[in-house]
């Protein structure tokens, strides 16, 4: 407003004044210096964020080992994270199982291995797609909501109010969400696995007409207990990533509606990227462990 008034007094439009300022500041530095400044700034911001995230996680873990939140707070969070996510995880799991059957059928049918389809679908689901799908749905549905809720609380000074009243916001807001994510994501993963297996079976046997007994027999042979364990084991890490990244983004939300929106989006994007990176790392580790115990168990077809 003042800028407009000032510009009007000089007989200039606001855009003319802004353009002249921008032009003057740009002429002071060469493009290379500006580019290097920007890159340096991004690197420093990244390092600071990693350090800050580590401190945030450490504070949360300290509360986790010293004093848990009250049962009422935990139950509400568990309900929101677990029970309300169940239908969407089950539904997406079913569709993924069916899609895998559709995609694989033509190739397997061409070489006469239709009945082995179940082994491929189930192994893919249990080892990889189930945990990643459950984590993706949780990151989208719960992670984004966590960042938005905590971001709004930050912007509207509710987090400051908690601190001012002698409650630690990390203990009160982050610990319940972290516990809900790491304890309930294994159950959601098992649900995604189960519904995917059911979906794949229904499509293969009912629609594609593959023999029921052969499909079930090959499915049973194809999936080992270790596969189920590795999927569930990985999901715990995915849950931890979703909770920590989303809560951190919410706590460090910028002001205004745009800041809250940005926090929610960033929470999902960062969570998803971290989940896939950690998935790769854990898969390599778990495969090494598995093949060190069963070196000859490399093929099931």
């Amino acid at each position, binding site marked *: 407003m003042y*800028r407009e008034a000032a*510009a009007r007094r000089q007989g200039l439009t606001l855009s003319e004044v802004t353009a002249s300022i921008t032009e003057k500041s740009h002429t002071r530095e060469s493009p290379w210096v500006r580019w290097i400044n920007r890159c340096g700034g991004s690197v420093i911001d990244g390092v600071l964020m990693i350090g800050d995230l580590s401190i945030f996680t450490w504070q949360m873990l300290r509360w986790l080992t010293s004093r848990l939140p009250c049962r009422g707070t935990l139950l509400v969070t568990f309900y929101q994270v677990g029970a309300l996510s169940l239908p969407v995880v089950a539904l997406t799991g079913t569709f993924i199982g069916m899609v895998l059957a559709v995609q694989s059928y033509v190739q397997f049918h061409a070489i006469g291995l239709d009945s082995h389809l179940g082994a491929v679908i189930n192994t893919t689901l249990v080892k990889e797609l189930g945990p990643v799908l459950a984590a993706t749905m949780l990151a989208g549905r719960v992670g984004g909501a966590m960042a938005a809720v905590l971001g709004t*609380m930050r912007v*509207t000074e*509710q987090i*400051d109010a908690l601190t001012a*009243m002698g409650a630690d916001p990390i203990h009160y807001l982050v610990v319940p969400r972290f516990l809900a994510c790491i304890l309930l994501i294994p159950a959601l993963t098992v649900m995604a696995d189960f519904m995917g297996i059911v979906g794949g079976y229904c499509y293969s046997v009912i629609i594609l007409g593959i023999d029921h007994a052969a499909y079930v027999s090959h499915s049973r042979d194809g999936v080992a207990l270790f596969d189920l364990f590795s999927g569930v084991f990985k999901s715990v890490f995915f849950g931890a990533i979703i909770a920590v990244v989303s809560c951190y983004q919410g706590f460090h939300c910028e002001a205004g509606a745009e800041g809250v929106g940005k926090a929610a989006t960033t929470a999902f994007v960062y969570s998803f990227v971290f989940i896939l990176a950690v998935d790769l790392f854990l898969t390599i580790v778990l495969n090494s462990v598995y093949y060190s115990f069963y070196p000859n168990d490399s093929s099931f077809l």
Partner: protein
Amino acid sequence: MTNQNDSHERSIVEENPRRPLLEARDLTVTFQHNPVLSRVNLSIDRGQTVAIIGESGCGKTVFMKSLVGLIKPNDGDVRFDGRSLGEIQLEELTEIRRRFGFVFQNAALFDSMSVFDNVAFPLVQQGVVSPSEIEGRVMQHLAEVGLPTEVALRQPAQLSGGMRKRVGLARALILRPEVVVYDEPTTGLDPIMSDVINELILDTRRRYPVTSIIVTHDMRTARKVADRVLMFYPRNRLDPDDPQVIYDGPPSELEHAEDRRVRQFVHGEAGERINEMVQALSL
């Protein structure tokens, strides 16, 4: 030697009941290389009602949050009852915060809780009263700020701005704090509701022996409620050696302050600020 000196100093401090309740010593706060507060020295005595005025961005709220330890100063120190907030453990800081009541600008009520749960929150959190007493205390404090009992069941989103402020005030007072801090208590309210809030602040002071710190733009509030006014000036408009607090005195003297900037603010005059902005734009 240092320990001996420290303990000697502490004993003097503890024995002196007339020491200031709150003290800021060379308080400096910088956000991303922009100084907001620079070497602010102030003390607030028990029972005072202090209004902090100043234009937007002058550091009033930052100063107020620094007093409670919500913002850590880059340099300097805040002392509450003789104890430095920068030197104490988190547990002790939490104990000190319990002696404060904080009324936030937009009340900062928890959206996920009802009005009752919001007001009861400090009692539940601190566990200072038995569960059977909580309801009575909450209803008593809601009544003290002029809210009917049925409001207790509503969600914060269902309240008007004035009601939200009053619920915020009830929540701040429920632990019977020694210091009540108000962040722009009348901003965004109509004149009648603003006066209701002013009366509630005065009523609180009459009812409880509290020290009150009120950050406000509203000169009517400052004149009516405060017995001491501090005016902050934006750091970026001052020379490095200039003090940031440009007025410290009773509200009755504001009109006749020697400093032209104080009189301009009190009368709401832009003065030379428009020309300064034109110059800043053309630099």
